């Protein structure tokens, strides 16, 4: 069957090639292939699997003709790379869809991605680096009768690993731009919206009161102005007993409030608050980790791009957390006394998360939690300041400092404790000329907890527009004394990119965009290829 599909694909591909001049419409797509060759590594105790090669490949093809569109995605895991869900295996046409789109309506049949509001109630999306693809297979309709009225409705099954899952999802969402709708001419914009999502999964157990369906509702409000944005969303979800929550009949909720303030004086800030209670929402109650998720609850903390802060990344506690984040940016203008010839960018970020203040209950609800109260346990806290400045055409620097409290036991599991750390980072970019550039990163972490102090360095040399090479090392020099080194190079040519590297991966939480997965230690070579057209 699989081969048959491929043969058809190739045949159509060849057909297209032969008649490309005649066929109307546009084709676009891409290929991404990540290959890993594993070796045994005594230092990190990483063991190569029996099959020393792993490959994750994705091929997408999209076709559009006027208002009509269609597409496919072929994935192959031969076998899947270490650290990805083991259920990803084999080669399969995982996406196939066709649709029609004009200014008022967009209908997709087959596979589609969609999101309601901030995604707190429903979001289907793909994150290849984490092995997440919870695309829906069904029908999606987006209807926009007027610019200020947007309606979405969908139903379908969700992709769970290589197959469609058992749980059926139905949902609808309505969003109105009130002031536009009432024809009030204003500098402000006011948007209100709401969604409803229903999931049904058959229950075959003995408990007659067990709820096979979950209903979730959300309401949201948005205020926009040239210098101010406010975004509030509240979600309520019915009880969904699972092994993860120890089969309690506890309703769930999320409250999210975000404000963005910008000024003409180069100062801007974002302030976010979020409270999550019992919001693990899946199409399949037997799944765990990042599999079969209906909603999107990323960790709302600063996304660090340096390696040492990423040793201790925060992961959302879907059973209960309360906290927030503030980002403040200030730009010292070009040519000002403090800003220098090129200007200077300053930023301050802080976030804090605690558990909920809960009381254990004997009833089936399991626990109750005070709504506006911070719990007794600190989960995560960070404060970061950074300064970015170009000094001359040759030199640009970023200096950054961070203080971190990380409840490793709570976030990564029993056996760990609380980690208090300070991290300093220096990042220097030297643009020798229009082609040659060298970037140097140096980082140090001070802590007496877990694996104690770390030092890290990175060298990255690039020869524009095609070549770049890097070498990096991370070293816990007071405890295990393991060098987590890595080196490699990449070549970009137009829309193609090939990269080859060799190194050690540390076991731990790997996070992309605030969603995390645990990865085992492995060592070896990696070859990646991407091409888009």
């Amino acid at each position, binding site marked *: 069957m699989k*081969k048959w599909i491929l043969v058809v694909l190739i045949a159509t591909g060849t057909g297209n090639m032969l008649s490309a001049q005649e066929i109307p419409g546009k084709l*676009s797509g891409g290929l991404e292939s990540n290959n890993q060759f594993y070796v045994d590594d005594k230092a990190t105790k990483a063991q190569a699997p029996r099959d020393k090669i792993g490959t994750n490949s994705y091929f997408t093809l999209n076709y559009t003709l006027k208002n009509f569109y269609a597409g496919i995605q072929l994935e192959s895991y031969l076998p899947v790379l270490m650290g990805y869900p083991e259920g990803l295996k084999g080669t399969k046409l995982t996406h196939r869809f066709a649709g029609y789109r004009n200014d008022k309506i967009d209908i997709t049949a087959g596979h589609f*991605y969609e999101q309601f509001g901030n995604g707190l109630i429903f979001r289907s999306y793909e994150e290849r680096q984490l092995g997440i693809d919870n695309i829906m297979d069904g029908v999606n309709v987006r209807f926009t009768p007027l610019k200020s009225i*947007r309606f979405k409705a969908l139903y379908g099954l969700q992709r769970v690993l290589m197959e469609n899952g058992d749980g059926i999802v139905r949902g609808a969402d309505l969003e109105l731009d009130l002031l536009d709708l009432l024809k009030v001419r204003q500098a402000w914009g006011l948007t209100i919206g709401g969604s409803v999502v229903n999931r049904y999964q058959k229950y075959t157990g003995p408990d007659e009161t067990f709820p096979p369906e979950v209903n979730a509702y959300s309401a949201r409000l948005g205020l926009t102005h040239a210098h101010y944005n406010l975004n509030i969303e509240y979600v309520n979800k019915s009880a969904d007993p699972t092994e993860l929550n120890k089969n309690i009949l506890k309703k769930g909720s999320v409250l999210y409030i975000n404000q963005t303030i910008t000024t003409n004086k180069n100062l801007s800030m974002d302030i976010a608050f979020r409270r999550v209670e019992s919001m693990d929402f899946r199409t399949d109650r037997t799944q765990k980790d990042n599999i079969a998720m209906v909603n999107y609850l990323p960790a709302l903390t600063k996304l660090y791009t340096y390696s040492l802060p990423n040793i201790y990344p925060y992961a959302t506690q879907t059973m209960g957390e309360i906290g927030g984040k503030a980002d403040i940016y200030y730009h010292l203008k070009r040519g000002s006394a403090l800003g220098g010839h090129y200007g200077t*960018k300053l930023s301050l970020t802080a976030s804090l998360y605690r558990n909920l203040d809960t009381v254990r209950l004997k009833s089936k609800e399991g626990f109750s939690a005070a709504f506006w109260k911070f719990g007794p346990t600190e989960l995560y806290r960070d404060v970061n300041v950074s300064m970015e400045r170009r000094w001359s055409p040759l030199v640009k620097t970023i200096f950054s400092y961070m203080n971190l409290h990380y409840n490793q036991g709570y976030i990564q599991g029993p056996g760990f404790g609380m980690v208090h750390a300070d991290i300093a980072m220096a990042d220097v970019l030297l643009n020798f000329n229009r082609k040659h550039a060298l970037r140097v990163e140096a980082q140090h972490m001070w802590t007496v907890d877990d694996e104690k102090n770390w030092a890290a360095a990175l060298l990255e040399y690039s020869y524009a527009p095609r070549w770049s090479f890097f070498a990096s090392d991370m070293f816990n020099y007071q405890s295990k004394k393991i060098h987590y080194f890595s080196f490699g190079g990449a070549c970009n040519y*137009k829309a193609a990119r090939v990269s080859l590297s060799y190194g050690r991966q540390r076991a731990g939480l790997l996070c992309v*965009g605030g969603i995390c997965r645990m990865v085992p230690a492995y060592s070896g070579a990696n070859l990646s290829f991407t091409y888009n057209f």
Partner: protein
Amino acid sequence: MGKKTVSVYMMAAALFCCTIAVAQENKSQQKLPNVQVKDLEGKMVSVNTFSNNGKPIIISFWATWCKPCISELESIADDYDNWKKVSGVKLIAVSIDDARTSAGIKSVVSSRGWQYEVYNDYNKDLYRSLGIANVPYTVILNGDGTVAERHAGYNPGDEYHLLEAVKKLAGL
């Protein structure tokens, strides 16, 4: 590797070759699809309305958490007035930030003083329909809105090549 693996690779390679051929033959007619993105006020905008009065447009895909993307947009920002003057080009910065970080787009853009047109491809509809796998990613549209060049990744200095490519398109 087993026989099956090899045959799958071969098929994938064949498929790939075909599509490259299609893509090359097809290039002349590729325009942006009519998907919608959000502007900074949250309003939906169709990307096929992107225009620059017959002059080239650079579409730069970026994200607030992507360091090389910000480096690229920063280095262009240093010289953007000059770029506009010499080639008439307009840069449209399309962020792929999702709900986690999209609230930060406006403050990053405002605090850095970028003069670009900025949109949020919140559901990655445009990103996906162009087959893009990673940011940073740059697409150059010529005056009539067809895709003239694509470039994956960013190395310091790439901006000069970008400007050269734009000048060539503008007939300079």
